[in-house]
């Protein structure tokens, strides 16, 4: 397999769900902090509620994220997103593929 084919192969293996920039940033933040309030995620990433909802739903469908209700300020229940074990593994796999692509391009 030549280098161009290698890169093409690696690109085909990229997790398209996580490769979306907004979902990638959501999962990156959850990877660092383990869990985050949806309101916090929205504020940090500058997303609208609708946008955040769409992306979170996709991550939940894939089993990368779980949603819970937790008491927040003034004991009002707030929705919190957790990164699952599967989400963590997929994120690390995506990082490995990205690194492999980068090193293939550099050696070309």
């Amino acid at each position, binding site marked *: 397999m030549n280098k161009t084919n290698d890169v093409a192969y690696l690109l085909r293996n990229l997790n398209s769900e996580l*490769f*979306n*920039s*907004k979902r*990638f*940033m959501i999962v*990156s*933040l959850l*990877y*660092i*902090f*383990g*869990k985050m309030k949806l309101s916090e995620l929205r504020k940090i990433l500058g997303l609208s509620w609708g946008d955040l909802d769409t992306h979170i739903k996709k991550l939940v469908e894939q089993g990368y994220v779980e949603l819970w209700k937790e008491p927040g300020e003034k004991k009002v229940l707030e929705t919190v997103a*957790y*990164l*699952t*074990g599967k*989400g*963590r593994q997929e*994120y*690390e796999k*995506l*990082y490995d593929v*990205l*690194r492999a*692509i*980068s090193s293939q391009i550099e050696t070309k």
Partner: protein
Amino acid sequence: MSETVSPVEGIKVAELAIKLRKYLDTVYGAHIFLAIGTVIASYWMIIFATATVFSLYESLTFWLGALILMWVLIPFSIRLVPYPSPIKTASIVKKLSTWVLPFIILYTASISLILSKDPLLTDMGKNLNMGGAGWYLAVTLGLLLNHFVWEKQAYDKGQILAKPFLISGVFMLATSPAVYYFGHQDIGAGNILAVGLMLLGCGIAAFISIRKAYRWIQGE
């Protein structure tokens, strides 16, 4: 924000995320050690003081009650440092058994031997109980079991940067002859030494973990 991540930016972000995660997990582990060490050490100091004042050293019920109450304190002390970690450590059953099993085995063996009519077996039981500081050996075994059940795998996978369970377990195992000796000279002295050494072991493990995490984040 464009729809897909640029590979170069993606690598930078993911690299930072992975680095921070390892740092936070290691520092968290160190804090857990300090929290558990402090809570358990202060608990046993109170128990020994109570046993001394009310002459309860010979009461089996008192010591069994004290042991059972300790199981309530361990999850409580872990909750003192709340932190969500996506690291899969071990199932609740495995976690609980790694802490409870050494105590059950050690105390069942030593008490059965002490209660036997054979003076040789009674002596063996007393030796196993380390002159009343047998809990020190049980905690040591619990720490080492935790290392082999989940810590080793997490470390080998690169999820954590230090092995506090192994460090404190080995430290406590190496110092157990001193506890044994003190315990046979004086039951109070043996237990005070055991508490001191347990705190020291937890402290050493925590400080090594924090140092390793600091050096990791500094890129050393």
